[in-house]
């Protein structure tokens, strides 16, 4: 009945959405959803690993609509398979996490959460495994719609409503771009398939081609959350329940990057002139760099840790786009293809790593939120003692986000820096981008490691509250992700090899894996020589640590427990606390002008521009109000006494009869 495992996974998810929505108990629903997503994940892994190892595309046609030139078919190539594995795994872990997290006391039914969650997963699977723009668009919309329902889960909260609305409208307007571009090309070829449309794109005039590319790019970049198009992201991520934030950030926004790679690298990469590629690449890389910078600097002054993480998503997507931009820019320059491949490798590797540690971090943030009931950094604290396992996992997560060894975050940044510095040999602005990216990475350390981690887990809390203990399902997902972070950090060859198979690069084309896992750039292929021995350095770190512990024992110092020392005066801890919002005050002043406080000077004429930039007042709200009014009017025609319905029915019958009688004759 089914020709490919992807269809089975999809059907499992849809059936699961119905079944797990039927139960009234949150626990039962959660476990059902976990089982269904787990089954779908296993099936998807079988198919994905198969495609990645053989390098062949799985093809199976389900239905053909030749009238529209569209085919409902599974077309899973290595690029799609890589993302398929990523998406299903993140969703699975987040679902397991949600079983414990979604402990909702109110009247809310589980169908309100698990059904859209599974449909969301189904939509994402659909997006990565089809090669037909119309079908792609349908799944893309399914994904957006389901995720919107999840984002506005706390529907009583007006902030959440606003965030959800912004997300919905921004991504929708942007994704219309995909449809418009696809329709224009359909008009030319009469087909929606990726292949046919790519040919049509190649044959279009230069300006039309670039216009269509821009439409695609805006749609995907908006989903990916790149600055300034990703303005929805810092609002929507914190609004959603934490398990959903993990999927949004770990899986969904990566599909924006998937779209860009699909379009620029696979569909038109070989058709554009090298000049066009260079322009697009530089634009994408510059946007990425700006995102990395803005994400880092703005997160430093945020007091809400979920918002901080959302801003860090903008920053990390920035790294991905920086690397992708470099890859696109140098794709056709003679002699520099190795750099382009290296940059693509960096982008792919960072997508993988970011998915792992970002979903981990959102789960950590969710654990803090679950335990304390607040996401305000000025209130939480002292959670190391409450949840030691999560504290260790979160430590690994923030190390990874900051790109510090020995975690996976460092591994991909290592590749990205290499590619941007070597690309700088060709086009020097990339050098400056590398410096800015490095600064952004340090600011990540400043807000994540110190601000979020230090405040939530290490410092004493500033208010009295009773922290709740975490259910096991929540700890399980976080532990697993933390292990993945360290595992890939110590043996990055695994990640590099799997990304190479996703991009169908020959194994060891870019890196030589030496004894003891030493990674070095292959001589003669790559203009810069770089080397890194993850295991050797980790062993050295451990040895040096043991040396330090040994030195500590020399003096046989006695241990004594004391209280904090405040220069001889006695204060209760809470009174003298250094408040989180003042951490980086001098620094934030320097960058006060950076997003999201866009302050247009108050000069008469510019007031109009200000109003124009405030989409909420003149676009979103009136639009919604008009829609509600219209729906209300339609609704009113139905709400009334039974007799009214009868009159409507009779009137309708008469109208139908008149039409029929007049036409039949």
């Amino acid at each position, binding site marked *: 009945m089914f020709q490919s495992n992807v269809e089975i996974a999809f059907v499992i998810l849809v059936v699961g959405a119905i079944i797990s929505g039927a139960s009234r108990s949150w626990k039962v629903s959660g476990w059902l959803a976990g089982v269904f997503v787990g089954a779908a994940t296993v099936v998807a892994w079988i198919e994905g690993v198969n495609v990645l190892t053989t390098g062949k595309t799985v093809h199976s046609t389900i239905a053909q609509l030749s009238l529209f030139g569209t085919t409902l078919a599974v077309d899973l190539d290595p690029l799609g398979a890589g993302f398929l594995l990523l998406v299903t795994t993140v969703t699975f872990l987040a679902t397991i996490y949600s079983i414990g997290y979604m402990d909702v006391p109110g009247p809310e039914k589980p169908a309100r959460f698990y059904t859209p969650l599974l449909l969301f997963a189904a939509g994402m699977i659909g997006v990565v495994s089809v090669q037909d723009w119309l079908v792609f668009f349908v799944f893309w919309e399914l994904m957006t719609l389901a995720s919107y329902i999840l984002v506005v889960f706390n529907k009583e909260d007006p902030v959440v409503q606003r965030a959800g609305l912004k997300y919905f409208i921004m991504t929708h307007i942007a994704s219309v771009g995909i449809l418009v571009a696809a329709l224009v090309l359909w008009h030319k070829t009469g087909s929606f398939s990726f292949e046919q449309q790519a040919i049509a794109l190649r044959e279009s005039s230069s300006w039309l081609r670039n216009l269509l590319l821009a439409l695609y790019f805006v749609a995907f970049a908006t989903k990916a959350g790149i600055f300034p198009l990703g303005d929805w992201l810092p609002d929507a991520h914190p609004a959603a329940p934490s398990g959903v934030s993990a999927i949004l950030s770990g899986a969904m926004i990566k599909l924006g990057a998937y779209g860009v790679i699909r379009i620029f690298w696979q569909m038109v990469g070989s058709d554009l002139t090298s000049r066009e590629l260079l322009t697009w690449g530089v634009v994408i890389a510059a946007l990425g760099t700006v995102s990395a910078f803005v994400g880092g600097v703005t997160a430093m002054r945020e007091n809400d840790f979920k918002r901080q993480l959302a801003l860090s998503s903008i920053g990390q997507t920035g790294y991905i786009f920086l690397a992708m931009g470099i890859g696109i820019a140098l794709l056709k320059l003679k002699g520099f293809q190795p750099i382009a491949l290296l940059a693509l490798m960096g982008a792919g590797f960072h997508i993988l790593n970011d998915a792992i540690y970002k979903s981990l971090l959102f789960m950590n943030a969710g654990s803090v939120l679950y335990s304390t009931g607040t996401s305000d950094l000025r209130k939480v604290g002292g959670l190391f003692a409450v949840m030691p396992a999560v504290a260790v996992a979160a430590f690994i997560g923030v190390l990874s986000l900051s790109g510090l060894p020995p975690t996976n975050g460092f591994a991909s940044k290592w590749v990205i820096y290499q590619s941007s510095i070597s690309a700088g040999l060709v086009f020097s602005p990339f050098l400056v981008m590398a410096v800015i990216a490095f600064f952004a990475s340090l600011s990540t350390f400043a807000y994540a490691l110190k601000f979020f981690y*230090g405040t939530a887990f290490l410092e004493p809390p500033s208010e009295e509250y009773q922290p709740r203990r975490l259910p096991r399902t929540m700890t399980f997902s976080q532990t697993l992700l933390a292990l993945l972070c360290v595992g890939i950090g110590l043996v990055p060859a695994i990640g590099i090899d799997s990304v190479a198979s996703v991009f169908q690069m020959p194994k060891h084309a870019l890196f030589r894996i030496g004894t003891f896992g030493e990674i070095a750039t292959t001589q003669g292929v790559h203009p810069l020589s770089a080397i890194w021995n993850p295991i050797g350095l980790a062993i050295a770190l451990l040895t040096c640590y043991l040396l330090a512990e040994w030195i500590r024992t020399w003096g046989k110092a006695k241990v004594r427990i004391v209280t904090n020392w405040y220069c001889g005066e006695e204060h209760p801890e809470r009174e003298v606390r250094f408040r989180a919002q003042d951490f980086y005050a001098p620094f934030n002043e320097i960058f006060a002008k950076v997003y999201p406080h866009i302050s247009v000077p108050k000069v008469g004429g510019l007031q109009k521009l200000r109003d124009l930039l405030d989409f909420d007042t003149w676009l979103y709200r009136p639009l919604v109000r008009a829609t509600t009014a219209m729906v209300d009017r339609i609704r009113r025609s139905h709400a009334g006494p039974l007799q009214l319905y009868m009159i409507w029915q009779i009137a309708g019958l008469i109208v139908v009869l008149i039409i029929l009688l007049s036409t039949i004759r």
Partner: protein
Amino acid sequence: MSAAIPIIVNGVIVLLLAPLYDGIVRKIKAIIQSRQGPPITQVYIDILKLLGKEDLRCTRNLLFRYGPPAAFAAFLVVALQTPMGTQPATGLRGDMITWMYFQVLGAALISLTAVAAGNPFSEVGSARETMLMLSVEPVAVAALITAAVKSSSLRIADMIEYNLTSGPTVSLLCGGVAFFLALQQVLGRVPFDIAEAETEIVGGPLVEQSGPNLALLKMAMLIRQMTYCFLLAQIFVPWPKVSPWPIGVIVSLIKVLVIFVLAGVVEAVMPRLRIDQALKYMGRVLFVALAALAFAAIGV
């Protein structure tokens, strides 16, 4: 060359000679300020004595206890990766990116230890330390990227080799100047000892530390200072080329001593800056570093 030699050489330099260098600087500072000053062995005495002092715990936080040795280890690994007159050992080979990030790892651990102490003074100090780091590391990275572009390699050993054979070049000199201007801040010396600022926030990140952990933290900072000075001396001023490696080590030790003394003189005659002044200063230095990058990009 046997694999053990570079490890032993680097280890001896950063663990045994770093306190001596600090002692010499303290003596010179005292002479400039017309004081008697401590003996040059004072730093050794301090550290050894601290190892036997009481280990006071103001919190049960694990990072407070394990942070200092971990930071010590991270900086020691950075030191072992740095070519100090010899080639680093095979298993420890790394490039400028690993060098930089292990360095940040050490700083991060110190900073987290300070937060874990739960003392407002240490938190202020740690926040300042982070801000200073944010302003100084881009300068160092821009200077290192300049060297990477010139030598077409990210490996520190290759950068040194390039500058030895085909230097000096305008861009590398410019990068060296930027690196030197940033150095005072990395060393944590006046006018940039803002994070510790004994008279203002009573030692900042160190305020709650005592006994063996304080000794390890002090050692970690000395290792960091020594490593940074070596990097400056080796990459940007690698001349003259000397053949047997022991003489090379001695020559670089002399160069590093000169850098230490210069830093000490600056320290002796300057007052401490405020944090915002320091940030603005580093902003200007960044332009020097970016100029070095620009020179490298046009190939001089």
